[in-house]
Each structure stands twice: as structure tokens, then as C-alpha cells.
């Protein structure tokens, strides 16, 4: 009986959390499209999330593109398929690794930062103070962060991630594996399809939305001082990463399932 009660409690808590997240998300979305808009806060968030994430995103995808090229060359040489290297690096980076790696890095960097900042504001009564100053925290804190992440991911970070990832493969292929740079670029451009770019940017926008939603949600409902903020930060990163991997499959299915 106790066992059944425990299962019931877990199911009940899960449904409660899902409902609360749903209400939080719908409230946040409604505030994204209604005045007042805090442009100063939005621009600050765009800089923090987009511009300051560029170095780590660039470095990660550069080395991943290079490693991918080495692996494909070594694997392909067993079947005399080394020439497929540029196209596989391109498809691998643009369709999959670029957006997913970019999402996971931003989840670690941005989602954690949002949860910690908003969580600290919650436990030190700064959010309550904001309410007493006739300012809606959803408008001032949540909406600019979600808009900024959802825009910066597709229109800045994933474009850089895809490009630098492909560049990493190009540098290894032409510098170490003996590929002709002109032929490499021609093959790459021939294989690049518009749908690959759309898919990459769609994934990035979806990931950006969930990264910021998880960071804001867990921070907003954090409680219990430093420990509570720590738990909120961990939960934000873990849930954002899980949602990235889940939605990655769903968007891939949507674009490329034949």
C-alpha cells in the first residue's frame, strides 16, 4: 500500500510540476508580446547570451569539426570513401553537431547563470521588491531573457557554430589530409541545401527557448537560500539538456523523415 502511495505521490508531483511549468511558459510567452518592453534589458541579455558565448561556442565547434574530419577520413578510407569527407562534415555539423553542441554549451553557460541570478533575486526578496515597485518580474526579468536566447541562438550562435565547425574540418582536410582547398569548398557548397540551414536554425531557436525557459523557471521558483539556488541551477541545466536532446530528435524527424 505504501508502495502504491509513493507512486501516486510521484505521479501527482510530476503532474503538478508539469502544470506549473505550463502556466509559467504561457505567462512568459504572453508577456513577450505585450507592452511595456524593456529594450535596455533585452539588449543587455542579447550581449550576454549571444556575444559573450561566441568564444566558447567557436572553440568547441572548431575542434569538433576537426575531430570529425579525422574520424571520417580514417573510417572512410576502409571503403575508399575518403572523398565523401567534405559532405559528411557539412551535414554532420550543420544538421546535428552545430546546433546540439551550441545548445548544450549555452545550456551550461546561460541556463545556469539565469537560474542562479533569478534564484538569488528570489531568496533575497529582490523579486518581491520589484513587485512593490509596480514592475512585473515576468516583463522585466523573464521575457527579455527568453526573447534574447530564442533570437541569439539561431541568428548568431548556430551560424557561427556551423561555419566554424565546417572550417575545422576544412583546416584538417587541407592542412593534414591532403585535400585540395578549392575542391573541398566546391564540394561543400554543392552539398549545402537550404533545408539544412532551416533545420539548423529551427533547432537553435527551439533550444534557445527551452534553455531560457528552464533557467528562468527553476530560478523563479527556487527557495531555501544558497542550497535552494544551487539545486535550481542544477535542475535548470539538466532539464535544459534533456529537452535539447528530446526536441533535437523531434525537429530532425520533422525536417528529414521521409
Amino acid at each position: 500500500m505504501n508502495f502504491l502511495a509513493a507512486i501516486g505521490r510521484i505521479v501527482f508531483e510530476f503532474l503538478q510540476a508539469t502544470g506549473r511549468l505550463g502556466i509559467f511558459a504561457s505567462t512568459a510567452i504572453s508577456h513577450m508580446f505585450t507592452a511595456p518592453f524593456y529594450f535596455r534589458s533585452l539588449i543587455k541579455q542579447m550581449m550576454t547570451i549571444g556575444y559573450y558565448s561566441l568564444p566558447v561556442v567557436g572553440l568547441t565547434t572548431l575542434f569538433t569539426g576537426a575531430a570529425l574530419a579525422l574520424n571520417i577520413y580514417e573510417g572512410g578510407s576502409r571503403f575508399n570513401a575518403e572523398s565523401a569527407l567534405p559532405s559528411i562534415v557539412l551535414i554532420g555539423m550543420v544538421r546535428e553537431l552545430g546546433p546540439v553542441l551550441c545548445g548544450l554549451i549555452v545550456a551550461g553557460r546561460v541556463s545556469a547563470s539565469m537560474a542562479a541570478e533569478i534564484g538569488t533575486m528570489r531568496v533575497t526578496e529582490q523579486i518581491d521588491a520589484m513587485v512593490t515597485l509596480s514592475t512585473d518580474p515576468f516583463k522585466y526579468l523573464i521575457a527579455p531573457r527568453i526573447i534574447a536566447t530564442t533570437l541569439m541562438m539561431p541568428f548568431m550562435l548556430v551560424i557561427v557554430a556551423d561555419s566554424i565547425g565546417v572550417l575545422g574540418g576544412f583546416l584538417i582536410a587541407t592542412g593534414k589530409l591532403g585535400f585540395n582547398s578549392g575542391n573541398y569548398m566546391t564540394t561543400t557548397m554543392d552539398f549545402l541545401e537550404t533545408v539544412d540551414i532551416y533545420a539548423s536554425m529551427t533547432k537553435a531557436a527551439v533550444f534557445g527557448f527551452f534553455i531560457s525557459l528552464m533557467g528562468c523557471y527553476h530560478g523563479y521558483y527556487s527557495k531555501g537560500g544558497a542550497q535552494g539556488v544551487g539545486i535550481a541551477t542544477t535542475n535548470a541545466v539538466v532539464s535544459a539538456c534533456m529537452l535539447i536532446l528530446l526536441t533535437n530528435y523531434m525537429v530532425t524527424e520533422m525536417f528529414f523523415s521521409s
Partner: protein
Amino acid sequence: MTNTPKISIKGLHKEFGPKVVLDSVDLDIMPGESMVIIGGSGSGKSVTLKCILGLLHPDRGSIKVDGEETVGLRGKNRKRLQRKFGMLFQGGALFDSLPVWENIAFGLIAEGKATRKEAMEIAIENLRSVGLSPDVAKLSPSELSGGMQKRVGLARAIANKPEIIFFDEPTTGLDPIMADVINELIVDRVKEMGVTALTITHDMSSVRKIADKVAMIYNGNIIWTGSRNDIDHSGNAYVEQFIHGKAEGPIQMDLLKA
């Protein structure tokens, strides 16, 4: 003075799970009056304050401000009500991502009531009114001492020219001299602005300095109300024990029973 209370609380009830924090609070605060609610930790002081401010929703009861029912107010009506309020939080609750002047002028900037230049001038004016020099304006809250943070919090609370100011444990964490300075400032500002004030504290020197009327809350009920001068001969055993800080008395006996 009019006969309509500035704040009128009737039968206010609030539970958190199985714990009844407010049983049935009744309290009237007249315009221009400085009411202080005293009571031990966990007696329901902060919850009462948060219910009035709209930060918590009571389970039952009525809270009227200027004769208008405020329980259940949302959106624009809640925002209109919030404009009447100013609040000094126990820990200051200053926004640590903003400099001092933006903290003070936060409400003005967020509501578009002033340009940033005007807002800075207003902030400096308010800083002066709480005895701080304009040099403090550009500092970060983390660079301020506890007493200075309280002063900045007070400057923020009065910057929007509220009709009612709430003080949550205004002297907690301060040395006795700084506590007296803050008490003096509160008295000066409240009298000069002619506002209604509601303070919650367990610091008796604060009570004797800033109160016109005193109410004692115990176990979620107001058990005594009277003028500041009556507090030393209230004839209430709970009040007697509390103001003299005695270990023995009805409050202790109830704690032991629990």
C-alpha cells in the same frame, strides 16, 4: 483625519499546508498613522505584510486600502494599488545588478515616468534626504555597509512618493547607534511626507521611537492594540512578557506545550 481607515484588515486567514500562520487578523490603520506590529518569530508579522502588499494571497478575509477591497486584485488594478505603496525590506533587497541610483529610481524608470537623466537627479535628491552624499549614487549595492543599504532601501521606498510605507524589521542587523539613526530617518520621512506607515519589528527601541500605535500579533491573531504610551501598562500578560523580553510567561508556556 477621515474616519475611513487607510488600511482595514478583517478576518485575515492564511495557511501553509497544515500550519495556520494567520488565524483571523483584524486591524485598522488610520491615515497618517504609524502603526507597528510586534510579535515573536513565526507569529505571522511578515505574512500579514506580504498579504497586504499582494505578494501572498490570503485564504480568507478582507484587506481594504482607502475603502477598496484589494484581495484578488490583479493586473492594472493591482498595479494602480502598488503605486500607493513603498517598502523597506529587512535585508534591503537592493538589485545588485544595478547601481545605487538606478535602484532608487527603478520604479520611475520602469514606468517611464522620468528620463534616465531626470531619474538620476531624483535619486540623488532622495539620497540626500536619507543623509547620503551624491558620491554613493554610482556605487554598487555590494560596496555599501549594512546601514547604508538600509538608507538606500529607504530612499527607494520613498522615491515614488507613496501614500503608505511598509518597514520590515528596519533595524535588524544594525548596531544600536545606526539603528537609532534609521529610526530617526523613518520618523522624519514619515512625518514630513505625511504618509501612513506600517512597521513590523521585534526591536522595542524601534517601537518606542517610531510608533503612534502598536499591535501585538500572537499565534496568527492580533491580541492587543493600543497607543505607544499604553504599551508599558497594557495589562496583557503576552505584551508584558514580550516587551520585557522575559523567558517566563504565557508565550514560553505555549511553546513548551507545543
